[in-house]
Structure formats: C-alpha cells, structure tokens
C-alpha cells in the first residue's frame, strides 16, 4: 500500500474502482499458431509496488502490452484505473510510464535531449518537458552525466535513462519490464532502491515484471505470480511472510541438544545448516527459547527474525517450476 501520500483520488479521475490499479477478467491472448500467452488470467492489482513474477514466456510481456492497449486480447477484458484497455488505450497511456525489457535508447543523443523528447511525446509542453527531464534524470541519479551521449553510458546508466523516460511524464502507474536485466549485484540493488522510492516516496504505483523472485521480494508490497498465462498466486508480501515467520537461532556448540530441548518444550525446530529455525507463534516463543538457552547454558551467538524468501514460500506451496527458473 502507498503510505504517505495515500491513494490519490486525482489520479484515477473519478472512476477509480476502489483502489484497484489493474484488473483483468478471464484475459486470454492466443497468438497465431495456437500459442497461448495468456489463458483466462484474472488478477487485481492494488496500489503500491507489485511484483509480477513468472518465467520467460509466462505471459508477463503480453500482459503489459495488453495493459498499454497495444495488443488486443483474444478474450476477456483488462482495465487500468477502471479504464478499459482495449477501448481507451490512448487515455490509459497518458497515465502509464513504460520501461521495456530490451535496449531502446539511441546512442547518438544526450540523455537530456532524449528524455526531454520523450517528455514531449508524453504530452508535456516544451518548457515543462525540459524541466521534468532534468528532474527525472536527477531522481535516477544521472544529474552530472546528463549531457553525455547515451552511447557512452554503462549498462546501469542506460537502465536509469530507461527509467527516467518512463518517469518524465509523471505517470500514475509504471510498468517496468525486467528493470534489473544485465546489471551487476550492486547495480541491481541501486535499481531496486530507486523503484522502491518511486513506489513509496513518489506515490506512483509500480508493477515490476521479473523472473527473479528473491530480488523482487525486498521492495514489493504485493506479489502476482503467473505461469503459462494463468494466475498462480496473488497476495501481499506480509501475508506471505507473516504466515511463516521464523526465528533463526545460532549457537557456537550444542545445536543438537538445543533442538531436543526446544522440541521437549513444545516447539518444532528445524535444522538449517548451522542454525535452527523455530516457527514464531507469538511472544511466548521468545520466552521459551530464552529459557531453553539459559537452562542449557548454550553459547548463543545469534538470534534473529528470519523471513522466508518468496522462493521458499512458492516452493512450500508446490510452485517449484516458477522458483526453479532462477
């Protein structure tokens, strides 16, 4: 959920359907040659940052193109802010900032020129486009280098320009297709921080399409997992992780003894490498754990709240195919 600014009534222009940013019903897309990209997909996306998870070919890009009104669904319907994607794509596109997965930047212009032009194409008047281009580039951290030709940029900088051109038109929703593609770990972290800021501080709803489950988890409020064009699971991150909070306990020695002791006291610890994972029911669990460690005089070296990664959760619920994509 968006905190701070809250759900802006202005963005949805009066026909806001109870906060749902995206809604699809029985959405089906069949390509020539009987390739089914989407197969009766029904999903509702709330404001905030939503991870759209799926393997390559799961239908993520097809869904994005339908949402942009660039592709007609074979069956079913999709809407963004309550506006029908098929009938009124033009209006929807004034509200969406789209960052494609592939390279989409001309090498022989400066970032400022390019983002300004894209701002014009989003419907900004000339002066506003210039101002917002400078601002967008500043937000993505390219203030100093903005007068350099894009061709001289690193992959990470190019990804930032792609993000800036999606941001320049002040969209209400951003569709980001694999934004961390081709980035090194540090670059991924920085890109995810940026997306997280856009979703929380800027108050813009974001859909991040990715096949990397673990990466997305950190910044998303919601997860929508699709596979073979169908909805696999949609839920909030907190409901995923909240249901299975774990305490991670590490002791320098006597791990087995501690496990036995905890089991004797009614907990069900699970061993994971050199640590124990203890399901956290309520605050009483902490007390039981403390007493057990104290009674055994076990050399406790670490006690922390451990969140399951999304992957593990999917694996727990028999969603191995998606998880294995990594």
């Amino acid at each position: 959920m968006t905190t701070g600014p809250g759900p802006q009534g202005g963005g949805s222009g009066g026909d806001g359907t109870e906060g749902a940013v995206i809604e699809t019903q029985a959405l089906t897309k069949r390509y020539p040659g009987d390739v089914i990209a989407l197969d009766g997909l029904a999903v509702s996306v709330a404001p905030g940052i939503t991870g759209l998870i799926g393997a390559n070919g799961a239908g993520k890009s097809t869904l994005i193109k339908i949402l942009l009104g660039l592709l007609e669904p074979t069956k079913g319907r999709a809407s963004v802010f309550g506006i029908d994607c098929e009938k009124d794509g033009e209006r929807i596109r004034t509200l969406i900032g789209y960052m494609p997965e592939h390279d989409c930047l001309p090498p022989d212009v400066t970032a400022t020129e390019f983002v300004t032009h894209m701002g014009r194409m989003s419907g900004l008047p000339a002066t506003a486009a210039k101002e917002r281009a400078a601002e967008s580039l500043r937000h993505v951290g390219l203030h100093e280098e903005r007068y350099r030709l894009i061709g001289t940029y690193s992959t990470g900088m190019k990804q930032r320009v792609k993000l800036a051109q999606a941001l320049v038109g002040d969209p209400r929703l951003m569709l980001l297709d694999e934004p961390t593609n081709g980035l090194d770990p540090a670059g991924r972290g920085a890109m995810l921080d940026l997306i997280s800021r856009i979703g929380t501080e800027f108050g813009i709803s974001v859909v991040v399409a990715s096949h990397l489950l673990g990466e997305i988890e950190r910044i998303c409020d919601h997860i929508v997992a699709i596979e073979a064009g169908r909805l696999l699971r949609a839920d909030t991150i907190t409901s995923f992780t909240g249901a299975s909070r774990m305490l991670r306990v590490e002791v320098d020695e006597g791990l087995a003894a501690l496990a036995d002791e905890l089991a004797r006291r009614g907990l069900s610890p699970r061993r994971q490498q050199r640590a124990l994972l203890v399901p956290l029911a309520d605050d009483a669990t902490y007390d039981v754990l403390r007493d057990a460690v104290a009674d055994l005089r076990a050399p406790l070296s670490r006690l922390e709240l451990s969140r399951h990664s999304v992957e593990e959760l999917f694996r727990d619920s028999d969603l191995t195919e998606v998880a294995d994509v990594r």
Partner: protein
Amino acid sequence: MSADSALTDGAISARGVIHDRGYRRYEGPRLGRVQIIRALLWHSFRSAFGIGRGAKAKILPVIAVVAICLPAIINAVAVANGGSQVVGYESYLFALRVIVLTVFVAVQAPEMVSRDLRSRVLPLYFSRPMRRGDYPLAKYLAFTAACVILVDLPLVLLYLGTIASSKSGGIWPNTRGLLGGLAIGLMWAVLVSAIALALASLTGRRAYATGVVAIFFFLTFILSQIIQQIAGQGRGQFISPQTVPAGQRLAGLISPFNTLQGLTKWFSGVRVFHPGEGPVPDPGSYAPAYIVMFVVLLAASFAILAVRYRKAGVA
C-alpha cells in the same frame, strides 16, 4: 541543510540525502494527440537538416541546400547584370534536382526512420498517448516538408533575384511561373519522400537503407533513360511533339523522377522536347498513365509504411 526538518518523510532524512528536493507532481497542462504529433513532426523536420544533432549530421544537408541553390543565385545575379533568366521555374534544373534529391533522401530518410528502428525506440513512442499510424504520419509530413524546402527554396531565390532586377520582364509573369513551380515542387516532394521513407523503413541498418534508396532511384532513372533513348533512336536534337514515338513517351514511367518530370511537362505545357535537358518528352495522350503511376507509387509507399509500423509497434 534544513531538508530533514522540512520533510516529515523519515526515509529521506534517515538516509541523509541532503540535495534531494523530493518528487514533484506535474500539475500543468497536457497536450493532446494532435499536438504530440505536431511536436514529433517539428522534431523530425529539424533532424532532417541535422538541427539538434551533431555537427556531422549537418554536413550533407548544408551541401545539398547550397548545391541546389547555387544556380538560382548565379542566374539571379546574371539577370541583375543584364543577362537573361536561363533557369526555368517548372522543374528548375532537372538533372541537378534529381542528383541532389537522390543524395539527400538516401542519406536523410534513414535518419528519419532507420535510427528509431535500429535503436528499438519505437515501443517508447507507442506506449505514449498516440495511435499506431501517428508516428509514420509525423515522419512523412516532416520529411515531405524538408524535401519541399530543398526543391522550392531555389525557386524562391530565383524569383526574388529576378524581380529585384529592372530587366526581370515583369512581376506578374514571374509570380505566375513561381507559383506553378512551387506547386510542382510540392508534387515532387510528396512522392519522393514517401518512396524514400518506405524503402528506408525496411531496414534498421542505416548503410543498407541509404544503399537501397540510392540504388532504387538511380537504377530506375538510368533504366528509364536507356529505354527512352533506344525507343527514340535516329532522331535529331529537336523533335516536334507530334513525332515522339509511344515507347519514348512511356519510358518515363519506369523512374519516379521521370514520372514526375513527365507530369511536370504535361502540367506546365512544355511541348517542345530537348533530349539534352531532360530525358522525358511530354507524355501527351499518355498523361493518365503518368497520373496512375504517381498514385500507385504513393499508395504502395504508404502501404509499406503502414504494414511496417503495425508490426514494429508490438515487437
């Protein structure tokens, strides 16, 4: 900095990003689709002459403009010094126009369309509030306008230079000649830019696009000229309009330039055929064939552009 006191948002102050002024929504007016097309048109028109691009991008357009305007200026100066106007308004200097236009469109049409295809920037356009056909439409109008400048600018210079002189032969005949010439120039630009853009849009590789456009225009032009000469063998320098054989009259249809030149002669009523000045005789009773060819070439070019951009948008 007073940033942390002013901003209640804990995330910002906690991270200590002092130069961050936060995100500001855009509350100003937004342009509609037509104004966006106009913005793209203006942007593309400028880039056809290398304006807003690097110095290198300006070299060819400048050479083209200078080359095509030079005879007009020279002739205007000559008229002022007592000479006569040897360059006509109808199709200006045909051979020069063919060469300069071919080189210009071969180099600049890829600048218009191949760059965007190559860098795969089209999805960014199509994800904005415009329709599928708007992009090629804006590009076409922009490029046609650029070609009009190239074709009609020398006529205007010639006109201004001529009427400024006392020996001009009167303002009215010159004005009439100029207006006819400008209209014919527009006809040239409409067709040549359409063909060039359609051919250039077939490939994202700029060098190939230039090659395809240049070869198409030159090859058809030379073929047309050869056939025209074969059909008209054994004739003298000055041929009366009645004795031109059908093959020679129809040979112009092979080349867009000669099709245009045939139409030019037909419209402007130049009945006398000087084989040295332009390869095509007045089409005479075959004029409808020239009109049909003009329409077919234009329609085919538009069809190629439409198909090309219907596909490119989704890919």
